[in-house]
């Protein structure tokens, strides 16, 4: 079947080349049938890449080790669900996933705009097929997912143990959906500039896709953070890692665009800014893919090799140069139709919010690419750490949260000072109340966290007031009950109130971040059974060691040969709170030089974190058993010299028994973090709000509201 897969790639390349030519010829010559044929090339690309993807999936699920990618990233003992997800753990498979998702989203975008903006859509088609062609060419010439090997290996290497977690099955497709969706506004933005049609229509066409990109990227980022917190042994959810940052940057510029596009829709302003944001977001998405796939910067998330750097750099250079040329050459038609009426208006707040978001993006960009910049300028690689990022991002995040509370209570166009004073009364009262309560509770040791809590309270006050007043106005008009009025309010103004819910979610999320990072208690120490330690208000006692052997032929095999852990008793003020059982899995390596027993444990060990999760705090634990302790190391050495590979598991069983009978002192990592749960709850609120804002209004409601507005405008027409 590898032949069919590769034939699909070749066919996809031909389809891309033809589609680009047909679209450009169609739009330049006015021959609509060619533009139409170009659009259908995107559908065909989606079909062909779907077949290619299915071929690779079938190979993974069927353990077809003739495929190099299957042999390198899967094995018979990898559980079926992880085998299905292993497709995108390899360089080659992830490129195919990228191209496939791009073709699907592009098809949807072009299908929805098939009756509109034919000239813009034709250019967009060519650009999207250009991206598709680029990724397909990478697979054909550099990283072929259908490359085979002979003789066929009897067994594969298996999936990287770090990726054997449910969140990692969903995280990459979400992130890649976000990245690929970012290229759709970019393609339409470039198309609008090329077609010289930078009006309201292209903004309307791409709005939902920009929103969907923001949503998918956000979900991907949150899932990555959740994976990092609950699976990796360091206890953090964000480490300012290069790949994490790469996904955050387009999300930030995308957030800025979602705000500033409203100003263009309403006032015809900020056209240069908006089109620049769209182009920057798309380019940053490609750069994000480049970081993961080129391996150019060190990252725990970078799974690619070093072969794709040059083609990606060329693509990014073309994108940046093309974007600058288009914006500069079309600057005359991008002039604003109106000017800012007042500094006290929602437009002003949105502009401030845009500056903060882009400022955040710039800081993160500088910090992420600093190693490359430093190497280019001084010849020495240097990097910046979390304290550097925190120094600049924390104040900007505080301003951002504050602005997310100010914007909703200020009117479009112009607000009077008297109205503003009246509207700010409740939010300021909420912030002051929060300040008094927190100071009274003695939470004054971390001023920045305190400011964040007060800003969040300001947001709750501001948005709460908006919902209250909106529902009150609705009740006055329709005489509905409070719950009905609230539902009707949101249904009829999805973008506005969905956006407000997003603001609430962000405030909740930042409360979680501020509390967990400022008031965390941690302890890293070595304990023997029976010993205990105090972490914050909790006492944690090492009760006894645990050990599990899971032979590779076992049905419940998770991939690790041996798992060593501990049973921990967590108490508070003498009362039992939880029992935790952190462990570390030891995996086989394919290095025969480690010996028959050593090779069963020689792979990368993976920590299995244990937590007691609560709304107010999480007690988090990880363990690093000392498998190199003299007693245990001797068993491995003796086993290597006496046992053949087929009997090596006997030594592992003996090692496990020895670990339980004579446990060596073991290294533990404990964290007590307040309000971590609220980061994830905030994330869920953000994406619920995002979905509400993205969801199209029911056609009946839309028609009724449009008819009412038309009637009102017509009354003006009659008077005119």
């Amino acid at each position, binding site marked *: 079947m590898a032949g069919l897969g590769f*034939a699909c790639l070749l066919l996809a390349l031909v*389809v891309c080349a033809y589609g680009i030519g047909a679209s450009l010829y169609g739009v330049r010559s006015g*021959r609509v*049938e060619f533009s139409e*044929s170009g659009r259908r090339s995107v559908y065909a690309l989606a079909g*062909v890449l779907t077949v290619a993807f299915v071929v690779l999936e079938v190979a993974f699920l069927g353990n077809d080790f003739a495929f190099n990618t299957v042999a390198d990233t899967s094995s018979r003992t990898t559980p079926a669900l992880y085998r299905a997800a292993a497709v995108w753990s390899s360089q080659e498979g992830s490129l195919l996933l990228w191209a496939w998702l791009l073709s699907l989203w592009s098809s949807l975008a072009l299908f929805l705009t098939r009756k509109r903006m034919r000239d813009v859509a034709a250019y967009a088609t060519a650009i999207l097929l250009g991206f598709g062609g680029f990724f397909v060419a990478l697979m054909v010439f550099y990283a072929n997912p259908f490359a085979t090997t002979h003789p066929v290996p009897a067994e594969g290497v298996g999936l990287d143990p770090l990726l054997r977690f449910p969140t990692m099955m969903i995280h990459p497709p979400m992130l890649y959906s976000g990245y690929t969706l970012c290229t759709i506004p970019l393609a339409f933005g470039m198309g609008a500039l090329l077609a010289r049609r930078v009006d309201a229509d292209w903004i309307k066409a791409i709005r939902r896709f920009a929103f969907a990109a923001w949503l998918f990227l956000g979900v991907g980022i949150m899932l990555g953070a959740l994976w990092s917190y609950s699976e990796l042994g360091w206890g953090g959810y964000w480490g300012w890692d290069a790949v994490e940052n790469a996904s955050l940057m387009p999300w930030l510029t995308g957030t800025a665009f979602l705000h500033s596009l409203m100003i263009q829709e309403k006032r015809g302003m900020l056209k240069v800014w908006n089109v620049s944001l769209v182009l920057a977001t798309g380019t940053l998405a490609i750069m994000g893919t480049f970081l993961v796939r080129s391996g150019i910067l060190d990252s725990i998330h970078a799974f690619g090799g070093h072969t794709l750097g040059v083609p990606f750099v060329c693509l990014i250079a073309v994108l940046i140069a093309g974007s600058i040329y288009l914006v500069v050459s079309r600057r005359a038609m991008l002039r604003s139709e109106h000017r800012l009426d007042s500094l006290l208006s929602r437009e002003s707040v949105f502009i401030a919010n845009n500056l903060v978001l882009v400022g955040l993006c710039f800081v993160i960009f500088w910090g992420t690419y600093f190693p490359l910049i430093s190497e280019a300028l001084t010849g020495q690689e240097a990097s910046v750490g979390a304290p550097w990022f925190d120094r600049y991002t924390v104040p900007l995040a505080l301003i951002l949260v504050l602005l997310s509370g100010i914007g909703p209570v200020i009117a*479009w166009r112009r*607000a009077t000072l008297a109205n503003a004073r009246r509207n700010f009364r409740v939010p300021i009262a909420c912030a002051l109340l929060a300040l008094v309560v927190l100071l009274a509770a003695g939470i004054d040791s971390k001023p920045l966290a305190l400011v964040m809590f007060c800003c969040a309270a300001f947001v709750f006050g501001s948005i709460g007031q908006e919902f209250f007043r909106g529902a009150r106005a609705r009740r006055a008009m329709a005489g509905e009950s409070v719950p009905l009025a609230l539902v009707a309010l949101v249904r009829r103004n999805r973008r506005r109130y969905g956006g407000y819910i997003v603001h609430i979610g962000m405030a909740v999320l930042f409360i979680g971040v501020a509390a967990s990072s400022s008031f965390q208690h941690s302890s890293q120490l070595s304990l023997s059974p029976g010993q205990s330690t105090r972490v914050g208000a909790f006492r944690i006692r090492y009760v006894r060691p645990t050990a599990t052997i899971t032979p590779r032929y076992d049905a419940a095999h998770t991939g690790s040969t041996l798992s060593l852990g501990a049973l921990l008793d967590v108490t508070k003020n003498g009362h039992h709170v939880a029992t935790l059982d952190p462990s570390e899995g030891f995996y086989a390596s394919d290095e025969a030089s480690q010996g028959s027993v050593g090779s069963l444990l020689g792979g990368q060990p993976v920590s299995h974190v244990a937590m007691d999760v609560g709304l107010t705090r999480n007690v988090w634990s990880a363990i690093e058993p000392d498998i190199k302790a003299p007693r245990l190391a001797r068993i491995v050495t003796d086993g290597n010299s006496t046992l053949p590979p087929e009997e090596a598991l006997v030594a592992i069983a003996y090692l496990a028994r020895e670990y339980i009978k004579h446990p060596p002192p073991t290294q533990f990592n404990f964290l007590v973090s307040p309000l971590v749960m609220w980061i994830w709850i905030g994330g869920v609120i953000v994406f619920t709000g995002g979905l509400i804002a993205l969801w199209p209004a029911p056609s009946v409601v839309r028609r009724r509201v449009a008819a009412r507005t*038309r009637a009102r405008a017509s009354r003006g027409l009659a008077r005119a």
Partner: protein
Amino acid sequence: MGVQIAILTLVLVGLVVLVVGAPLRRARRAEGSASGAGRSLPEDAPALSPASERDELEAAREAKYREIRDAELDFRTGKLSREDYEAIDADLRAEAIEILNRLERLS
């Protein structure tokens, strides 16, 4: 297996040609059946310029309607004084009327 793959590949190529080439075949048929000279476009393919202008104006109209609704909501939720609301609403309606007039002229 090799033959099966070759057949599957050919089927795939055939399907791609069928999907991608459909608009070209349709246009050629239309050209052939059209009496006299000139190329005729498919029925659902209006010429670019008037449709483009109408699309633009319709998008601008929808945006203006939304702006009128937003201003009303801003007033009802206490963000705009009555004087400011009436002035803004009158401006917005005038702008909406201008767009409606242009749309009417176009049709």
